[in-house]
C-alpha cells in the first residue's frame, strides 16, 4: 500500500515536471551545459550563432535563396532597405502610410518596372513585398511576365512548386514566397512576399 502511494506520487511528480518543463517554448540551447568555461566562450567559438538564434532579430534576417536583382543588388524579403535603396535611384512614385499607434511607416516605392513595399522594424525598414510589373525585369532565376507554366517548371525544377496555372504557381524557400500569377495561361504578374 505504502509503495503504491509512493509510485503514484512519483508518477504525478514526473508528469507535473514534464508539463512544467514544457509549459512554454524554450529557445535556449543546451550547448552551454556541456561546454567549458560557459556562455561567452562557447558562443564566440561559432561567432555568436547561439545567441542570435534566440532573438527575434533572427526571424527577420533574410533567409531565402529567392532573390530579385535590381540596380546591381540582391533584393530579398525582410532585407533592410538601406542596403539597396540608394542603388535603385529615385522611384517613379513613393507612398507612405502611417501604421496605427505610431508604430512606423509602411512604404511603397514604385519604380518603372517593379514595386517594393516595406514595413517598419524599429528604426529600419524591411522589405515586405516585391512586385514585378513588366517583362523587362526578371527574377534571379530568369522568370518574367508572359512565361508559361512549363517555363516556370523548368526554371524552378530544384524547388517545390505548388499550385497550378489556373490561378498561380508558388515557390517557397526560407522566409520567401515567390508567386507567379497567371491569367489566360501565361504569367500576368510576379510577386515576392513573406512565406507564412
Amino acid at each position, binding site marked *: 500500500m505504502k509503495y503504491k502511494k509512493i509510485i503514484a506520487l512519483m508518477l504525478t511528480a514526473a508528469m507535473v515536471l514534464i508539463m512544467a518543463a514544457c509549459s512554454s517554448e524554450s529557445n535556449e540551447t543546451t550547448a552551454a551545459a556541456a561546454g567549458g568555461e560557459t556562455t561567452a566562450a562557447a558562443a564566440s567559438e561559432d561567432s555568436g550563432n547561439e545567441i542570435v538564434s534566440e532573438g527575434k532579430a533572427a526571424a527577420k534576417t533574410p533567409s531565402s535563396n529567392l532573390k530579385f536583382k535590381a540596380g546591381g543588388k540582391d533584393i530579398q524579403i525582410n532585407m533592410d532597405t538601406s542596403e539597396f535603396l540608394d542603388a535603385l535611384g529615385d522611384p517613379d*512614385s513613393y507612398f507612405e502610410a502611417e501604421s*496605427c499607434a*505610431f508604430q512606423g511607416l509602411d512604404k511603397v516605392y*514604385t519604380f518603372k518596372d517593379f514595386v517594393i513595399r516595406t514595413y517598419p522594424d524599429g528604426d529600419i525598414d524591411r522589405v515586405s513585398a516585391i512586385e514585378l510589373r513588366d517583362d523587362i525585369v526578371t527574377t534571379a532565376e530568369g522568370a518574367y511576365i508572359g512565361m508559361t507554366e512549363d517555363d516556370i517548371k523548368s526554371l524552378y525544377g530544384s524547388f517545390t512548386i505548388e499550385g497550378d496555372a489556373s490561378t498561380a504557381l508558388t515557390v517557397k524557400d526560407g522566409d520567401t514566397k515567390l508567386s507567379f500569377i497567371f491569367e489566360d495561361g501565361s504569367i500576368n504578374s510576379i*510577386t515576392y512576399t513573406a512565406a507564412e
Partner: protein
Amino acid sequence: MKRKIIASVLISAFLIAGLWFAQRLLMPKYQGQIVEGAMIEEYYDETTDHDVIFIGDCEVYENFSTMKLWEEYGITSYIRGSSQQLVWQSYYLLEETLKYEKPKVVVFNVLSLKYDKPQKEAYNRMTLDGMKWSMSKYNDIKASMTEEENMLDYMFPILRYHSRWSELEKADFEHFFEKDKVTHNGYYMRVDIRPQGEFPEPMPLDDYSFGDNAMKYLDMMTKLCKDNGIELVLIKAPTEYPYWYEQWDEQMVDYADRNGLRYINMIPLQDEIGLDMSVDTYDAGLHLNLTGAEKLSTWFGKYLVDNFGLEDHRNDPKYTKVYDDKLDFYYKMIEEQKDQLEE
C-alpha cells in the same frame, strides 16, 4: 520561531507590494502621443449598457463617433477596438463584453480577416494588456502570441516592461493610480485634416481566400451572436487603403448570405454617406477625422435605427445623466484639439 514567522509574512508582503508597485510604475501608460494602448481598459469604467458594440481595428475606433450616434439618434454604443486588432482578439473581446452586457447589435469591421496569423508584439500588448483577467483574456493571449512571446510575460507584465526603468517619464508617476480618458466610448478623435492623395496600385495576390484560422474566429463570432440573440453586422469601413480586394468582398457577400448576416461594404457608398476625402481624413485617406466620423455616424445611425428599431434613449434619465458628461468631454476635446492645431 513566532518572530520568524511574523517576519516572513511581513517580508513576503513587502516583496509582493514592491513588485506590484514596480509593475504598475513600469507598465506603459499610453497617455501621451500613443493612446491606443489605453483604449481597451476604459471600457470597464462604463456605468451604463450599450445597444451597439463595435469591434475591430482602427477602421472602427477612428471612423465612428459614438457621441454623434447618441446626439442624433439616442443610440448608446461602445467601440471595443484597438490598433491592428486581429479577428481572434475581436472575438475574445466580444466574448468578454457579453459577460458585462447584452447589446442588440454587434458591428464588426472585416478588414482584419486578411491576417491569418499573429502579427506584432507591440499591437498585441496594446490590445491585451488592458483586458481584465478572465478565460477570454487567457485564450486571447494564446491565440495572439507571436513566436517570441510567452504567457508569463502577460501574466506578469513586469517581466516584459522591466527595462523601461531607465525611460520612465513624468506620466508614469502622474498616472500611477488613474489614467485620463482618451476615447469617447472607444472613439479616438482627431480633428486635423490631411487630404487623401493617390494610393499605390494594389498588388495582385496568388490566393485571395481568407485564411482558415481567421475564418474560424469569424464563424465563432457568428455563432456567439446567434446564441445570444444578437444581430451581427459585418462592415468594411469606407476608407480605401489598405486595399480591399474585390475577391475579398465577394467572399464576404457570400459569407453573409450563407449565415443570414448583413454585410455592408461602405467604400462604394462614400458619396451616399457624404464623405469628401479631401477634408474628412486626417492621414491622407487611411482613417477619417472628426467630420468624417460624424458624417459616417449620421449615415450609419440611420441605418441602425431603420433596420433594428433601436430605442431612442435621449429622454431616459438613466442615460442622459451619463451622456451629458460624455458630451461635455467630447466638445471639450474638440476645442482643445482645435486650439492645439492653431498653435
